[in-house]
């Protein structure tokens, strides 16, 4: 049971972020295709960082009983993949929230040009398609 503690400690906040994402259309609920691509690149990059660091002996897994003990590779617990996914997702969700709070708007990326007409409609269709 305790072996699931770390995984749960990552997955529960991730689910909470997904609720924020769904409510405010920040990341996956704003642009699923591009967001998944960005998350995928981020996850691969951080996994590469881990693999090199572990191969060089910079760190290794601890003896905590809060982990399942399942490994993706030597010294690389399956929970690390969850953590990396969480880190990438929280980054994009936070960026969206900060943009929204500052009035930039989560959809505004490169400039302050006026919103393109039909954007809301298109976003709505994407949401329908995602269900």
């Amino acid at each position, binding site marked *: 049971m305790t072996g699931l503690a*770390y995984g749960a400690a990552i997955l529960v906040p991730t689910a909470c972020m997904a609720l924020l994402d769904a409510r405010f259309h920040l990341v996956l609920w704003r*642009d699923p295709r*591009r*967001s998944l*691509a*960005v*998350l995928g*690149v*981020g996850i691969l*990059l*951080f996994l590469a*960082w881990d693999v*090199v*660091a572990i191969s*060089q*002996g*910079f*760190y*290794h*897994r*601890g*003896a*905590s009983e*809060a*982990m399942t003990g399942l490994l993706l590779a030597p010294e690389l*617990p399956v*929970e690390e993949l969850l953590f990396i996914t969480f*880190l*990438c997702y*929280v*980054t*994009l969700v*936070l*960026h969206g929230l*900060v*943009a929204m709070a*500052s009035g*930039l*708007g989560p*959809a*505004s*990326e*490169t*400039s*302050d*040009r*006026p*919103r*393109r007409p039909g*954007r809301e409609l298109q976003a709505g269709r994407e949401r329908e398609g995602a269900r």
Partner: protein
Amino acid sequence: MSYLGLATVFVGIAVAVSAWATVRRGLTIRWWATTALTTAILLGLTVVFDSLMIAADLFRFDEASLLGVRLWRAPLEDLAWPLVAGLLLPSLRALLTRPTEAP
């Protein structure tokens, strides 16, 4: 190579991609302010949660590979993770967004 050397490689990649995105997509001061605040929050969260994760013995470091500077329990080098995440991921998203699609 030390852990710092490895971290520097990834920070370099993130800086290069964000610079490229700024040039290619004309990222504004407001975008950069948003990115800076996001990264600052991530850095703060990392000091707290990295320390808790180390205290929980989720992972252990080879002390000889570290600079030896710690913020609470988090090695300074670990701050490269939120720095890279905060710089790289929003920059990648901006690069993937075609200028004509920008609202």
